[in-house]
């Protein structure tokens, strides 16, 4: 019997859920005054009305705020055609159902199946048109099913059983277009040389591949898994007038054998830091921290899924990178997450959004909600990140998710051994997310939403948190030899990777599934989330399974690692795959690409502020999308769970001064902090990706040292998101950025320890125009604080303290915010002298160690003026500053707004001034003025003219309000 339990809020349309739904519809252009949201639970099983009432009254209803109705499932509600229901599609994971099943069991109510539904009551009948809008706005067409009208069911929908049929793919006789048709029809995202290599391999073996063999090769050879562009051959050349890369370290003949090895990894190899414990070989890079503790860090992209389904895409992106940390070495415990996003402009009119793309506001809201719900539920703080905007991200937004883990030094090596059982731990396998690795390697188009909907995964953070607890306990009890996460490619990638040097046999029918009907191919390729694969010695198997059971985590033996060199997949005694690991991992043909750098003419947006009016320019930059406060986002993240937060995203009495980096003590009682920062400037890539890379590294490092990070113990990560690198101009830009990375990392002594690239970020409009994103390089820095006492925040501390700027200011405006807003073109990008910068950063560290620095903040977008404004508003204190030509220029505009690298403003108590000067002896350190009690920022020019004279209140409002406004809200009051 099926029962329907319907819960109505007593506040009806005024309940928070009702209001939230109405607002979401309003944003989607559907007026829905009086909308009421209800929860419905459908319970099926051997139960009668009395038991259903018990479930309603003792478990489901909150009697303070809700009323419950209990009725047989086929009873129509009286509101009839004013109702609209959203529920998960049959077979799609719904965590609510799992929790409800458990709670019903606790209550003694026998249930065979349950379903949760969100029901919305409109004031009028729901038209087909309104239903379509509501389905997309309130749910997600990819995973949710919408039904208009009363909800009447006699039984819950179930899947159909699967009937085995082995599928072969005839390749042996195919060539050219016919071969590439197979590539397209099976969505393999391979090129013609790779398809030919697969054909030839199976031809030599005297047979056709099965579908699962073909897909396994495609997943393993995908750009996502293999990074074949970054590690591929290429020939680089230049056109037009440009700074020659051959003078900056590239080989004279332009021939690059392996770009990654010759730039990024080369810096790491040459630096050869003893505190780097594991680099570029595992899920994440690992460095020493303190004593027996090491820290690992990984940043991933999850761009394409987030474009189609922002909430699920971003959440599972974060879930994926957390699993990377869990699967580093023998398992690390995640201690903090970072998130960096790039979106289209929030004020884009709806009619300018290309078909097939979502509005940036919808994307951003979904992404933030997805990251919030996943990260917060995992119990991992999110204290660092940034958000950037550019029109070219509209069709192809970027979502970078990072995670830092703590791991014992003696747990960083792993290797599966012959005879180890293959155990899948965590969530069940479903049809979700099939083909993610190949999908992320393909271009987005106006049709992606319909074609690739299966490629979006559904996350359940609590399932992953449960896996995390089991993993750490099993690690400490030494219960397994190796572990890896199921990410892109699902079990095919995980088992393939772990068994690379051995061989593996997997019995696919043993893999637990969420529902009936999955084929052997689907089971093997599913990217269902929250699963880890363990290699467990037979002697430890019972202990591991027992541990899992005690934590309610499902664990299943699905096969064995065997020293056969073969990957064998079995479905109820029938072999569906039997391939050498060697072909899978080494059989991919290398391709050679052409890379051309030709500086393009930059188009500047229409000027919005008059050049020369420093007050207006300052306010405009403070309020511009890339600079303005991201409080609207940050307050939705838990940045304090685990109680390690030592530098939070916002600082000062008003809790609204932006921090440069985060610092977190990674274990209760810990004596030092991990410092994490990032650098990303999307506007410099248009000028020259070489200088962009240098600048981004400098930005990450100066943020890091401002907060008190030790520059001598700092590693960095590269994350490239680029346009389609099969196109020579995109690849040419990538080559330049990589050489910039090498130069800066080497000179700073900060090795790369991990990285990731996403090299096909273009959006094909229905008019056939391919829009590439700006060249986007995220640099993330991680290291150890000089000491807890040396941690420094950016808010001004005390009237009467002196202000200094370290570092020289030059007339560098190309790609700057001043250029963007005033339309006054800059001809020079910010350049970097890393040797000089390193001296400054070391001096700052020394001053922090001596307790000389009251506050420090870096000059980035908007230059010195914005830096001072942020420090002042953060501290709720004013500043009186006088510019001098000593700073590096006699031009006031340059001194205020140029975006030269390696500059940091510091505040020092008068008593410490002499000591500070001593620490910075021989380095560029210039007096600016002093902190003032009067709450205004006043800056005088080189000739004494008043340039900036602004009350803090106005600066604060300009900085804090724009993002709240963009989402139709007002910034809340502050405590000071």
């Amino acid at each position: 019997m099926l029962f329907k339990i319907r819960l109505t809020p007593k506040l009806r349309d005024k309940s928070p859920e009702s209001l939230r739904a109405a607002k979401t519809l309003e944003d989607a252009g559907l007026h829905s005054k009086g909308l009421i949201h209800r929860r419905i639970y459908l319970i099926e099983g051997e139960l009668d009305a009395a038991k259903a009432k018990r479930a309603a009254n003792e478990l489901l209803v909150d009697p303070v705020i809700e009323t419950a109705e209990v009725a047989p499932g086929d009873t129509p509600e009286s509101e009839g055609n004013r109702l609209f229901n959203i529920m998960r599609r049959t077979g799609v994971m719904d965590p609510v159902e799992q929790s409800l099943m458990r709670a019903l069991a606790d209550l003694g109510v026998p249930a065979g199946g349950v379903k949760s539904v969100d029901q919305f009551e409109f004031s009028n009948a729901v038209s087909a048109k309104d239903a379509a809008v509501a389905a997309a706005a309130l749910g997600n067409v990819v995973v949710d099913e919408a039904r208009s009208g009363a909800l009447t069911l006699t039984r819950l929908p179930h899947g159909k059983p699967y009937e085995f049929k082995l599928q072969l793919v005839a390749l042996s006789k195919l060539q050219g277009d016919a071969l590439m048709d197979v590539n397209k029809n099976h969505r393999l995202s391979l090129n013609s040389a790779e398809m030919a290599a697969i054909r030839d391999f199976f031809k030599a073996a005297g047979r056709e591949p099965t579908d699962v063999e073909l897909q396994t090769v495609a997943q393993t050879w995908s750009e996502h898994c293999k990074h074949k562009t970054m590690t591929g051959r290429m020939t680089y050349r230049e056109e037009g007038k440009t700074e020659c890369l051959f003078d900056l370290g590239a080989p004279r003949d332009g021939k690059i054998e392996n770009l990654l090895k010759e730039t990024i990894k080369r810096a790491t190899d040459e630096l050869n830091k003893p505190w780097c414990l594991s680099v570029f070989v595992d899920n994440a890079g690992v460095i020493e921290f303190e004593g027996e503790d090491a820290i690992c860090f990984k940043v991933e992209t999850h761009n394409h899924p987030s474009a189609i389904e922002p909430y699920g895409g971003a959440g599972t992106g974060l879930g994926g990178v957390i699993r990377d940390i869990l699967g580093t070495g023998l398992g690390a415990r995640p201690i903090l997450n970072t998130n960096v996003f790039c979106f289209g402009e929030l004020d884009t009119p709806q009619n300018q959004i290309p078909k097939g793309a979502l509005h940036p506001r919808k994307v951003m809201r979904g992404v933030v909600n997805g990251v919030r719900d996943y990260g917060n539920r995992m119990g991992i703080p999110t204290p660092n990140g940034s958000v950037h905007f550019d029109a070219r991200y509209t069709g192809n937004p970027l979502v970078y998710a990072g995670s830092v883990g703590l791991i014992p030094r003696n747990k960083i090596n792993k290797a599966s051994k012959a005879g180890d059982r293959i155990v899948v731990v965590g969530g069940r396998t479903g049809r979700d997310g099939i083909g993610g690795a190949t999908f992320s390697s393909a271009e987005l188009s106006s049709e992606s939403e319909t074609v690739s909907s299966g490629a979006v995964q559904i996350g359940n953070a609590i399932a992953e948190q449960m896996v995390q607890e089991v993993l750490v306990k099993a690690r400490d009890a030494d219960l397994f030899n190796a572990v890896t996460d199921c990410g892109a490619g699902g079990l095919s990638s995980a088992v393939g990777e772990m068994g690379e040097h051995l061989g593996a046999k997997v019995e696919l029918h043993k893999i637990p599934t969420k529902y009936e009907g999955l084929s052997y191919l689907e089971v093997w390729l599913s990217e269902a989330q929250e699963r880890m694969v363990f290699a467990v010695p037979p002697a430890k198997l019972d202990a591991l399974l027992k541990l899992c059971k005690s934590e309610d985590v499902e664990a299943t033996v699905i096969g064995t690692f065997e020293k056969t060199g073969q990957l064998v997949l079995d479905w109820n005694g029938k072999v569906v795959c039997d391939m050498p690991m060697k072909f899978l991992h080494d059989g991919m043909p290398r391709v050679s690409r052409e890379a051309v750098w030709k500086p393009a003419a930059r188009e500047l947006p229409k000027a919005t502020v008059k050049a020369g009016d420093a007050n207006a320019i300052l306010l405009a930059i403070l309020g511009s999308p890339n600079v303005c406060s991201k409080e609207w986002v940050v307050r939705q993240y838990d940045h304090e769970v685990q109680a390690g937060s030592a530098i939070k995203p916002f600082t000062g009495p008003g809790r609204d001064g932006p921090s440069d980096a985060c610092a977190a003590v990674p274990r209760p009682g810990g004596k030092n902090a991990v410092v994490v920062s990032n650098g990303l400037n999307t506007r410099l890539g248009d000028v020259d990706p070489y200088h962009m890379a240098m600048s981004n590294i400098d930005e990450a490092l100066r943020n890091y040292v401002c907060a008190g990070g030790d520059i001598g113990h700092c590693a960095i990560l590269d994350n490239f998101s680029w346009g389609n690198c099969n196109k020579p101009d995109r690849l040419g830009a990538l080559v330049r950025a990589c050489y910039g990375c090498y130069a800066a990392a080497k000179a700073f002594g900060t090795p790369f320890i991990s990285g990731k690239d996403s090299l096909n970020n273009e959006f094909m409009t229905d008019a056939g125009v391919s829009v590439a994103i700006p060249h986007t390089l995220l640099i993330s820095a991680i290291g150890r604080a000089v000491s807890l006492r040396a941690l420094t925040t950016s808010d001004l501390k005390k009237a009467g303290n002196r202000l200094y700027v370290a570092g020289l200011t030059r007339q560098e405006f190309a790609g700057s915010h001043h250029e963007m807003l005033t339309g006054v073109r800059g001809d020079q990008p910010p350049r970097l002298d890393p040797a000089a910068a390193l001296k400054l950063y070391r001096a700052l560290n020394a001053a922090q160690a001596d307790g000389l620095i009251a506050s420090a903040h870096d000059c980035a977008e908007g230059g010195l003026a914005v830096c001072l404004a942020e420090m002042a508003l953060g501290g709720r204190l004013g500043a009186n500053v006088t510019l001098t030509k000593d700073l590096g220029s006699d031009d006031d505009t340059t001194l205020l707004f140029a975006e030269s690298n390696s500059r940091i403003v510091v505040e020092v108590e008068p008593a410490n001034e002499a000591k500070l000067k001593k620490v910075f002896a021989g380095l560029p350190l210039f007096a600016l003025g002093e902190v003032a009690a009067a709450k205004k920022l006043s800056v005088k020019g080189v000739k004494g003219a008043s340039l900036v004279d602004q009350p803090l209140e106005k600066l604060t409002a300009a900085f804090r309000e724009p993002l709240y406004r963009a989402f139709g809200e007002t910034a809340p009051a502050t405590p000071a």
Partner: protein
Amino acid sequence: MSKPQALVLRAAGTNCERETAWTLEQAGASVEILHVNALIEAPSRLNDYQLVVIPGGFSYGDDLGSGVVFANQLRTRLKGAIEKYISDGKLMLGICNGFQVLLKAGLLTGRDVFDDPVRATLTWNLTGRYGDRWVDLRIVSEKTPFVSGRKIVSYPVAHAEGRFVAPPAVLDELEQDNQIVFQYVDGNGRPTQDFPFNPNGSDRAIAGICSKTGQVLGLMPHPERNVRHFHHPEWTRMSRDRQWGDGFELFRNAVKRAGALVTA
């Protein structure tokens, strides 16, 4: 005074157990972290402890409402053991999700150990979403041994469903019985309904309440996140020699009373 035994009780989705346990240890307790499954297997183990803390997190994903599934377990699987534990005069503390669990299990509002039906709830913040921010709280009742002195303290809140709601008669009863322990206050130290000082819109600015006996305390803000000197958002403006934050006192008080129960 003997060393009291504290139990940090967790379930799937609990995520503040380690810092909570550490804080209790610093306060002088001997601490064990246990999955509720283990306690359900052997409910009499509850007798070993004088202090039980349910820490923050998202137990069972809060899938049926915050704390509901965990609360259901306490009511259905551990009822007898908890009734005995409370009648022995022992202490329970619920922080954030732990408060939601205790309240929805009925352990805070009734005259009996378990209130049935439960007469108050914690529901969606008026903002409609999760929020992490520091708040000022005034201790307005000393009915419970967890607090000492009617002062103002700062703890962070981090929740989506922290709005305390009850019918006026129940609120009056809580007030009359001095069960309202923590209230959100504005810059002038006055209880407030104004966001963001009252971060969720709680009735009568309620941030935490205790049971009629004072033995059970639940609060939405996180005292364990203001324990070390670097926790406070303005710590770099304060003396760097401060040792403990405002939140530590609550744990010290609890452990002190729990210790007295050991010798008794």
